[in-house]
């Protein structure tokens, strides 16, 4: 990443403008300032004036229009939030996607490119959906409201976490695109949450299995099996389509179908403030092979570029949930940032669909991909 140096600098020092202003203040002299303050001592008994404090200016961010890819939003979010607050949303795994190349095809007209798709009766502008992230006020004062506005502006559906920092009904008022609700299989008050979802006219419920009880809780051990009884309970308690999130193996996907799931999300997220996990791209094809003809397979995990998304579609995924990049946009630029991040991914996906000669999602198949062994160590060819 070209920005790494800037980021490191940003971590240790406040942004340039801030530093120089503070220095200027310091040079005026702590001694001089204090002596002035002591001569202007208030009369006895009057309340002490609060010490003078330089208002902290907001961190200097790069103008939004100057950012050229989604990864650049990460450094802006870091600058905005500081190292502690940004930690839960940092990181990307590029190792899996770097093993997959796309097959360009020529002279296939794609001017009428169409990325629209239908899921659970709703038309989606693209297969890119804003994924569930808990407690978004951690990243922006407007939290989920800003995300909802940004996602709607980008014509993308949004999944709201059951750990949202804003009531679902309020979020529902801010969206113009399909709204889904995510719940944890073992979460508290699932019944109430599901009732809330129906009241807010949510279009689907994602139930996260294989995860901790909350985003900030401890990670569940990998060995723990999926609690299918909890999934059954959700299916029983709601009339909405239920999507099981956290599937990594074909046999689990088949079980989900048997339990009445109307969709699955291939995901290896296990809850907690985990660092970015290994990409899920190579887990998609086996799941699609097992159940793809029965219910739609979605996927999440380290999608950072349009090419990553095209690869998932090539493996048979019907859609992709985007988590961290959307939060980067939210943290740095609020609703506008969310819109930009989603639009950027839409544009990139469109770009590479065109260059691979695929004018519609139906035209995307495994022949668009080539999977390679992990990259060899490169030698120095400069001799």
């Amino acid at each position, binding site marked *: 990443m070209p920005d790494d140096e800037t980021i490191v600098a940003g971590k240790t020092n406040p942004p340039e403008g801030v530093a120089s202003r503070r220095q200027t203040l310091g040079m005026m002299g702590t001694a001089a300032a204090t002596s002035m303050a002591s001569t202007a001592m208030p009369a006895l008994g009057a309340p002490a004036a609060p010490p003078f404090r330089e208002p902290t200016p907001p961190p200097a961010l790069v103008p939004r*229009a*100057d950012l*050229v*890819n989604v990864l650049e939003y990460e450094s802006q979010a870091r600058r905005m939030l500081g190292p502690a607050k940004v930690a839960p949303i940092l990181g990307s795994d590029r190792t899996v996607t770097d093993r997959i190349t796309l097959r360009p095809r020529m002279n296939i007209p794609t001017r009428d490119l169409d990325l629209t798709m239908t899921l659970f009766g709703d038309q989606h502008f693209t297969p890119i959906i804003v994924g569930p992230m808990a407690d978004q006020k951690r990243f922006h004062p407007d939290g989920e409201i800003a995300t909802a506005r940004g996602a709607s502006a980008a014509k993308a559906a949004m999944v709201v976490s059951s750990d949202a920092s804003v009531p679902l009904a309020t979020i529902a008022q801010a969206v113009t695109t399909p709204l889904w609700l995510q719940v944890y299989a073992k979460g508290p008050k699932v019944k109430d949450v599901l009732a809330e979802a129906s009241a807010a006219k949510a279009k689907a419920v994602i139930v996260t299995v294989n995860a901790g009880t909350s985003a900030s809780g401890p990670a569940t051990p990998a060995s723990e099996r999926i609690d299918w009884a909890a999934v059954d309970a959700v299916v029983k308690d709601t009339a909405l389509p239920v999507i099981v999130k956290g599937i990594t193996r074909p046999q689990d996907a088949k079980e989900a179908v048997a339990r009445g799931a109307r969709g699955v999300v291939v995901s290896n997220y296990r809850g907690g403030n985990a660092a970015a996990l290994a990409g899920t791209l190579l887990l998609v094809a086996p799941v699609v092979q097992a159940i793809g003809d029965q219910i739609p397979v979605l996927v999440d995990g380290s999608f950072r570029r349009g090419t990553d998304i095209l690869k998932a579609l090539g493996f048979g995924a019907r859609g992709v949930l985007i988590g961290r990049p959307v939060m980067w946009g939210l943290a740095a630029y609020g609703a506008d940032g969310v819109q930009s991040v989603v*639009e950027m991914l839409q544009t990139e*996906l469109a770009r590479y669909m065109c260059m691979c000669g695929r004018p519609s999602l139906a035209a995307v198949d495994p022949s668009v991909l080539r999977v390679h062994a992990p990259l060899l160590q490169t030698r120095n060819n400069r001799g």
Partner: protein
Amino acid sequence: MALARVAGLVAASPVAAAVAQIDPRPLGEHRRVLSLAEVQTAFDFEPVFHGNVILPVYDYTAHGDGSEFTLRRNRQAFDWVDILPSRAAIPASQVDLSSELLGLKMKFPIIVAPTAAMVPLHPDGEIGMFKAATAASNTLMILSTNTSTPVAQVAPASPGGTLWAQFYPLQSLAATQQWMDTYQNAGAGGVIVTIDQQASYYERTQQDRNFGGRVARTAGPGAGAGSGTAVLTGAARYRINSGRLWYTWQYIDAVRKMVKGPLLIKGILDPQDAGMAIDHGADAIIVSNHGGRSMDYGPSSLEVLPEIVAAVNGRIPILFDSGIRRGTDIFKALALGANGVMIGRTARWGLAAFGTAGAQRLIEMLQQELVQVSAAAGCAKLSDIGKKAVKANFV
């Protein structure tokens, strides 16, 4: 007064004497820019070029599409091919790599690829490049449609040289005919049609432009929703320039009728497309990913070359470009089945670093390197450089 005394003391001290020395570091002299007499490999030209031009000009040459995965992979791919010295080495003087390509006699299977606007690189511009190519054993040069010197001026500038011309499909057949007339009237017999780069975006170039706001920015994908109230349809809804998304093979048929000389199709990376190019009248294809400038996360040109060679099966010549920096790179491409190679960026480094003389030196350097590696591998002629001379370890 006191200050002056202190200064006098310092000046008299041995510390100040040491400071006054000119660069005490033993390798200091090597920090200066190399001269043309000192360059050893093509790589040596690159920093000189970098120093000579302004950032946007450097960026235009250096960068590729998207995250530049493919740009990097082009170079990595050469590392995945090993040269096997299967024959006994021969003296370099016995190596003769001459061949005939579409009726054109070539002393070396190396061609100068079409690249845009050379005058910003060096005042010698396209004319200098053409003179350099001609001086370097009559190397064929292909002039870009985005040339900064009109073809009518370039073609007669280097007597005895051969100039072909490249262009991008234009939806208007009348406009296409006009280009063909211009080229063929100027004496550019061969025509190269580039069919890749349908929707490319030079992200890194954009990053540099935005840095410090030195150059007015153009609307990128992050610029927000399309302004205006016009109802967008098709690809334009997703904020991409759909100007090149109409390309068809029928258009190639139409161009075929307009071109009297050789017609070459550039940008083939798939065996099926190679077959289509032959079906639609191409006299040769150029296996190329536009030097990593066309599609990010596409394959390196080298790794798809063998399967395209197999599909074409000798029906038409195959040229190769993308990532060539050394004679060994050329040898590998030839061994994997290419009939010749094109150099784009590398030729630009030569011109931008030292003008016409630099470009000539660079081309000759690659020719020499190719002869040397051929001699070491025991290949006396072009047809000796075959599959047995290399082992490809593509992943």
